[in-house]
């Protein structure tokens, strides 16, 4: 027992050393960019822990948002088991509701909540669409109402439109204006702003898919290249989207 005390102390120091918001952001961004589930799992856990222990409202809001974002990214990584994805998305939903209790006017939180709910619908194969669909729609509308010029809000709305069947007013062509608007808004946003600062990769990757869907392969490749300029190690773009253009 006595011999284990130094080990425990070292662990505690290491754990607390990682519990800074700056470090968590670095791991969230690195894990998402590299689709590294292990890194994301650790970052999500630390973000949740930081949200619990910090005495600063601002840091708690950011940590809750970060944990939800990480879970949303984790759920989409190939190889992550559906049960883990579902659990992560449920945790994200709870985190975002907690965040909205602190700041009901957070467009970022409403938009991410809509995306998390949309992901849950996709995981269920549409089984819970009646229940979660209206909630996602409300969250999306609220986000657009609160922060209409927030690029992440516009982006997530456009991606939802992309996934919405044509008979319900969606489809790739309907998503294109929103994706282009999001890219224009990202260009106005300071590139070095603090977190949340994600979305540039997604905007180009999804616009590339829109262009690919209508046969504009060179345009799509251009957008994929722009996405890779943001996240050079994205396996999704390098191994899935770009090869798909050759088919």
């Amino acid at each position, binding site marked *: 027992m006595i011999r284990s005390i130094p080990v425990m102390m070292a662990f505690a120091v290491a754990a607390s050393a990682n519990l800074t918001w700056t470090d968590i952001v670095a791991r969230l961004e690195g894990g998402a960019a590299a689709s590294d589930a292990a890194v994301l799992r650790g970052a999500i856990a630390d973000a949740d822990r930081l949200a619990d222990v910090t005495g600063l409202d601002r840091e708690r809001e950011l940590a809750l948002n970060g944990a939800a974002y990480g879970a949303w990214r984790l759920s989409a990584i190939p190889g992550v088991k559906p049960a883990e994805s579902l659990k992560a998305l449920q945790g994200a939903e709870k985190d975002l509701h907690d965040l909205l209790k602190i700041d009901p006017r957070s467009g970022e939180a409403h938009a991410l909540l809509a995306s998390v709910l949309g992901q849950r619908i996709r995981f269920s194969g549409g089984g819970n669409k009646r229940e979660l669909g209206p909630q996602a729609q409300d969250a999306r509308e609220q986000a657009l109402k609160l922060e209409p010029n927030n690029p992440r809000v516009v982006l997530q709305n456009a991606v939802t439109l992309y996934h919405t069947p044509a008979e319900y007013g969606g489809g790739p062509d309907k998503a294109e204006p929103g994706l282009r*608007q999001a890219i224009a808004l990202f260009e106005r946003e300071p590139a070095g*702003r*603090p977190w949340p600062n994600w979305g540039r990769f997604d905007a180009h990757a999804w616009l590339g898919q829109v262009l690919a869907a209508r046969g504009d392969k060179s345009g799509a490749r251009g957008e994929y290249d722009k996405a890779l300029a943001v996240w050079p190690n994205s396996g999704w773009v390098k191994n899935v989207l770009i090869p798909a253009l050759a088919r």
Partner: protein
Amino acid sequence: MIAMLLVLALDLVLRGSVYDQSGLAVSKALVYVDGTQLSTETGTSGRFELTISPARAGTLVVYRDGFSAVSTKFDPLDPQTFEPVRVVLTPAPLSETVTVRAPRAPAQPPSTFSMRPLDVVRTPGSAADLMRALQTLPGVAQIDEGAGLYVRGGDSSEVLVLLDDAIVFHPYRAEIPGGGLFGSVEPFLLAGASFATGGFSARYGNALSAVLDLHGLARPDAPQTNVTVGLAGASLRLARPLGAHAGLRVSGNRSFPGLPFALNGRPYEFNPLPGGWDLNASAHYDSPSAGRFKAFVNGIGDGVGVHVDSVSFGGLLRSSTISHLAALHWTDVIGRAWLATATVGVTRYARGTTAGVLSLKTTDVRASWRAAVERALGAWTLGLGGDRIDARTHLDGTVPERGGDLGGVSGSTPLDVRYGDVVSGAYVETERRIAAATVTVGARAQQFSLARETAIDPRVNVAVDVASHQKLSFAWGLYRQAPDASYYSHVSNAGLQAMRARHLVAGYEYGSEDGPVHLRAETYWKQYEALPLENAGGLFVSNGYGSAHGVDLFGHMKSRRLDVTADYSWLAAERRWTAVLDRGKFTMLPAGTWRPDFDIPHTAHVMTRFDFTRRLSTSAGWRISSGRLDTPVVGAVSTTAGYVPIYGAINSERLPRYERTDLTVSYLSQLLHSRAVLFASVGNLFARTNFFEYAYSANFSARRPVTSATPRVVYFGVTLTR
């Protein structure tokens, strides 16, 4: 004492408010320290507070979607950092999805530099004086140890100085020919300064060479007291908010010249010692419905008696000055589209100077107003405005018959000149972005009542983004300025025309002033016409002319601890004109042009700052330039009154080069429950003997350089802020 001040690390708390152009508070604006995750958001009142622990310097960025990001530097060594910052967000530039109705920030013309109060204080050798700090910018020549700004081959009188749009008619204190020993505007009254050394916009009139646009501090959001005690004086600054919409600022400075001379010795013989005071007050009111108002008043007094060795005179030159300035500034956004500003200012100034036969009293009352509106119209930005100067000057006394002959060997002339002139102007300016180019085209109509002259001067600026972070710029324009009142003591019935200049500037820029690397290279050509020239009858006529061309190079690199600025200027200037104090000095003017006093072909500065720790910082500056031009005395004629000098060719001799090295150290700490900045400086560290003129023996057979007895100057003090 320093050891006592080694206290625990301090936090830096940045406070401020964010508004849009109509004065409405902006909530949920993101406020962060650039390059970090340290951020906060504004509340519903637009206010924010961000704690930086431990305190360090950086850049604060304010961003709200739909608006352009605004960044501002902060530094715990800068007392102004502790002032609540007021940020006004402007709508973001046009995109496919956003309609902008309010005006965009105008494109920065070439040859323009910004300077903050902290930059002034940190410039080694500037003695915390704005004008002296500006002298280290490319294109500005220093011809003596004064604070005069000689810009790109122009005289120091060719610089227009504005404070919140009100003209500062006497921008120097302890005035000497060609400027003064210091600037008259204290840097910590300012939020910032913009200095355009050429090709400036149609917004500015009655200036031939440059524009120094000073922006005063805004309404205080929180109480603050600041005390500085230094070896040569003390200052006090108070800021108090009054309710939610009003505020008051009061400041004063008093110099105590005895101590620094006791420590350093006296560079020259003084009687009395140079001393002065100033008192400043501003009242602010931000009306939710009628815009923002600022009333500013100040009073300045100084006096000095200094032994001078002039051509024919060795004795005391005594000078005393008192001046008062009052200005009212208003700004508002009308109809959520027109950004409107209006300013009215009045200056009363009196100076007495005696030296030998020179005994001159100058009384000057000048008023000015200025009004301007600006708005975006689709892809265009349109600006309109008008201004007027009403000058009344009375010169009374006696002056030497020949310029520079303070001994009065050639006699003296009584003077009683009453000068009244009105200069009115109006301008229109448009700006639009065309592909990679931003084009600004403007025209200024000006009427000079004394010259009975009305003219329209076109001006064009083009900036082209040629690559990422790289820009080419071109500027061309015509400029006019009324001659100085002193010329009207000796003019013919034809009077004098407004002086004219034509600027052509081409430049390349890499990076930006806030970026880690900023490089600039500019070349310019200036032509002057209608300059005052003394004719054979001893009267001034507008037959003078001249030109100046040169190259200015500038580089600035900064990292977390090291900041290095280097610049070099090459200048070739020639003129055919007569400086007002040179009247009668030369019996026969040569044909063609000659080099003016301010032709300094080579000027270079290297300024570095190194932060040893986050609290201990040091700055060093090295400046070198060609020596000043001098007109030698080549002989003398004996008369009953004494010897009259015979001058050689005008400015045919160049004095040895000017060179000095300055060092400043500052330390941030806590003292008396206040934030404390302890500072110390050594001016002219290596005690190099620089000189700018010769003194001659009575019969002009021998001469000696006029040098300072104490070239090295040590100074120290402390600033407390709470």
